[in-house]
C-alpha cells in the first residue's frame, strides 16, 4: 500500500504528489469545461489542496468521507482513480457513476467516498449516519464530513453535529472556510469570526487550523481521529483556506479583488510544502519537475481515457432507480422507446 502520511518522507512526497494531482486535474477540468466537452457545472478545488490531502493523509484508507459540490480534491486525496473521475465528468459510461452523476455527484462508496453533493450542508447528516453504522457494528473506522463555511449556517448541519456529539459517534466535521459562501463573504453569513467556535454548542473540541499548511491540517485530523476511535465523539475542525477560482467555472468573481487573491497565492500550499521538503533535503527541484511531468502525463491520459470512453446507451437512463425494476418505469420506458427512441428530448 502507498505510504500516505505526513509522518514519513515517502508519505510526504505522496502528499505533495496528490496535491499536485488535484491542481492538475482541476486545471484541465476547467479547460475542458470551457471548451464545452464537460457539461453542467464544475466547482474547482484549486487553492484548497492542502485541506483535502492533509485530512485524508491523517485518515485510514478504510475511513469514510462525505464531500461537497467542490469534491474533486476530496476524491483524489481519498485515492480515487483520476481516469474514472474524468470519465464521469465527461458523462461517460466508464465513469464512477456510469455517467449518471457528473462532477457534483461523483462517488465511490466502495472506496469510502460517499459522494460529492449538490446540496450545501447535506453531507454532515450522511457522515453522522456512516458513523452510526461504524459505531453500531463496532468497526475500526471513522466518518468525516467535509463542509464549506456556507454550510455551517444550514440547519441540517446543526442537527447532524448535535446527533453525533450526543451519541459520541466516531465522526469528524471538517469545515473548509474558503472565505466565500458562493459569492457572499463569510462575514455576511455568520455572526462568529471563528467558525470553529460553533463546537462549543456541542461541547466538543473545536479548532481552527491553517488550511494552507498540509501538516497542520493532518495533525488536527489525526488528533480528531484518535479521539473518535477512543469513543469520545466528534471534533470540529475549521481549516482556513482560499479558492483561486470562482465558486463555479464562469463565475465573474466581482465580489473579490485581485489583490486578495494574490495575497493568498503568495501563501500557496503547494509551493510552501514543496519548499519545506526541499529545505529538509527530501526533495530536489529535479524530483519536483519529474513528479510534475508524471502528473501532467497521468492527467493527459485521464482526459484521453474520458474522451475515448463511450457515452452510456440512452436506455440506461431507466436503470438504477431501485434494487429491482418496477413496472411503472418499465412501462414508461417501453412506450417512449417504441415511439421512436427518446422522449422528444433529442436535439
Amino acid at each position, binding site marked *: 500500500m502507498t505510504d500516505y502520511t505526513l509522518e514519513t518522507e515517502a508519505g510526504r512526497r505522496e502528499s505533495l504528489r496528490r496535491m499536485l494531482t488535484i491542481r492538475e486535474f482541476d486545471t484541465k477540468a476547467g479547460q475542458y469545461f470551457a471548451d464545452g466537452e464537460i457539461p453542467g457545472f464544475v466547482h474547482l478545488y484549486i487553492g484548497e489542496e492542502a485541506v483535502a490531502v492533509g485530512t485524508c493523509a491523517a485518515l485510514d484508507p478504510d475511513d*469514510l468521507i462525505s464531500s461537497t459540490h467542490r469534491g474533486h480534491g476530496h476524491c483524489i486525496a481519498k485515492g480515487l482513480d483520476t481516469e474514472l473521475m474524468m470519465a464521469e465528468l465527461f458523462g461517460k459510461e466508464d465513469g464512477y457513476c456510469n455517467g449518471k452523476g457528473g462532477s457534483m455527484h461523483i*462517488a465511490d462508496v466502495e472506496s469510502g467516498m460517499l*459522494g460529492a453533493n449538490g446540496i450545501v450542508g447535506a453531507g454532515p447528516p450522511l457522515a453522522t*449516519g456512516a458513523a452510526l*453504522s461504524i459505531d*453500531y*457494528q463496532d468497526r475500526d473506522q471513522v466518518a468525516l464530513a467535509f463542509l464549506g463555511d456556507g454550510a455551517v449556517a444550514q440547519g441540517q448541519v446543526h442537527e447532524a453535529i448535535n446527533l453525533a456529539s450526543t451519541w459520541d459517534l466516531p465522526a469528524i466535521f471538517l469545515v473548509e472556510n474558503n472565505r466565500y459562501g458562493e459569492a457572499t463573504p463569510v462575514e455576511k453569513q455568520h455572526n462568529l469570526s471563528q467558525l470553529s467556535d460553533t463546537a462549543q454548542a456541542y461541547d466538543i473540541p473545536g479548532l481552527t487550523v491553517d488550511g494552507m499548511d498540509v501538516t497542520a491540517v493532518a495533525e488536527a485530523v489525526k488528533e480528531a481521529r484518535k479521539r473518535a476511535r477512543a469513543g469520545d465523539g466528534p471534533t470540529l475542525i475549521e481549516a482556513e483556506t482560499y479558492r483561486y477560482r470562482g465558486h463555479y467555472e464562469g463565475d465573474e468573481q466581482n465580489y473579490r479583488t485581485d489583490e486578495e487573491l494574490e495575497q493568498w497565492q503568495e501563501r500557496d500550499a503547494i509551493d510552501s510544502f514543496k519548499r519545506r521538503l526541499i529545505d529538509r533535503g527530501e526533495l530536489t527541484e529535479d524530483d519536483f519537475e519529474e513528479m510534475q511531468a508524471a502528473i501532467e502525463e497521468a492527467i493527459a491520459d485521464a482526459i484521453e481515457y474520458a474522451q475515448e470512453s463511450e457515452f452510456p446507451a440512452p436506455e440506461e437512463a431507466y436503470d438504477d432507480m431501485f434494487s429491482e425494476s418496477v413496472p411503472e418505469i418499465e412501462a414508461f420506458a417501453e412506450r417512449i422507446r417504441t415511439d421512436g427512441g427518446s422522449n422528444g428530448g433529442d436535439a
Partner: protein
Amino acid sequence: MAQAELEQEQTETMTVRESIRQALREELEHDEDVYIIGEDVGAFGGVLEVTGNLYEEFGEERVRDTPIAEAGIIGAATGAAATGTRPVAELMFSDFTGVAMEQIMNQMAKMRYMFGGKTDMPVTVRTTEGGGMGAASQHSGTIHSWISHFPGLKAVAPGTAAAAKGLTKAAIRSDDPVFVFENKMIYEQQGEVPTDVEYTIPIGEAAVEREGEDVTVVGTQRLVGEALDVAESLSGDVSVEVIDPRSLYPLDTDTIVESVKKTGRMVVADESPLSYGTHAEIIARAQEEAFFSLDAPIQRVGTPDTHMPFSTPLEQEVLPGGEDVKDAIRRIT
C-alpha cells in the same frame, strides 16, 4: 389481506398496532443489522405506542431515542443505510416530513441512481397519517402522494392488520427506501395476522379484499375497512368489489384494471387531498388500460383540498368516510 390468501396461513387476531410491533420485533430478531431510531421510540414506547416495550426487549442500541431533529434522523438513517446497516426510522407524524424533506428527496431517493446503482439504500421510514382525533392541521396530514410521486422512493399504506405486518416486514427487508404510512385511526382495528415469521407481502401487490360485480372501490388505509362495511350494507342491492392497493408505489395496476374491466365502474377512496394526487394516478392508470370497459365516470373520495381543521364538526365535515364512499357508489350505480 384477501380472505382466500389468509386461509392458507396460520393466523392470530391482533390490532394493527400490535401487528406492526410484531413485524418490528421479528425483524430485529431476524437481522442484527436492523435497528430503530426516532423520537421517543425507546423508553417512552412511541407517542402512539407502536414500539411499546421493544426498548426493554432489545436495548437502547437497537431501539434508539433521538433528539427532535427530523432532518438529522432521516439524514443519519440515509448515511447509515449506505454504509452497511438497515435503520428503521420513525417520523412521529407525517406532517414532520417537511422538516426532513431535503434528505429524503435529494439524498435518500437519489443516491443509488446518481451513483450509477453502486449503493443500496435499505432504509425504512415509518410515519403516521390521518385526521379523526382532533390533532389539527400539523398532526393530521396525509402526505403519501408526495412520497409516491417522488422518483426513487417506495410507499406502502396498509389498511388491515395483516397488511400492516406483511408490508412492514417487506419494507425492512427491502434494499430500497420504503415509507410505511400508518393511518393513526386504525391502530386499534383488529384483524387476522399470519404468525409465520417469514410472512411478508411483496411491495407492489394489491389485495382484493371483497369480490363483487357492479363497482370497484379502491380504498386505502382506514377507508379499506369503511369500504368493506359499505359493501356489506349494500349487499343484495349493489355488488361491491373492494381492493386495497397496499403499495402506492409501485402500484399493482393489473389487479385494479382487471377488476374495472369486470365491473365497469370505479370509486377511488383515499384520505389525501383530492387534487393532483393518489386518486388521479389510480384513475389515470384505469383509463389507460380499461377505457372501453368503463360504463360511468370514475368517482373519487378524499379530503377536499383543505387542511385538517381542529374542531370536531369541522374535521368531520372534510374527513372522508364510509358515507362518502356510499354516496360515490350511488352516483354511478
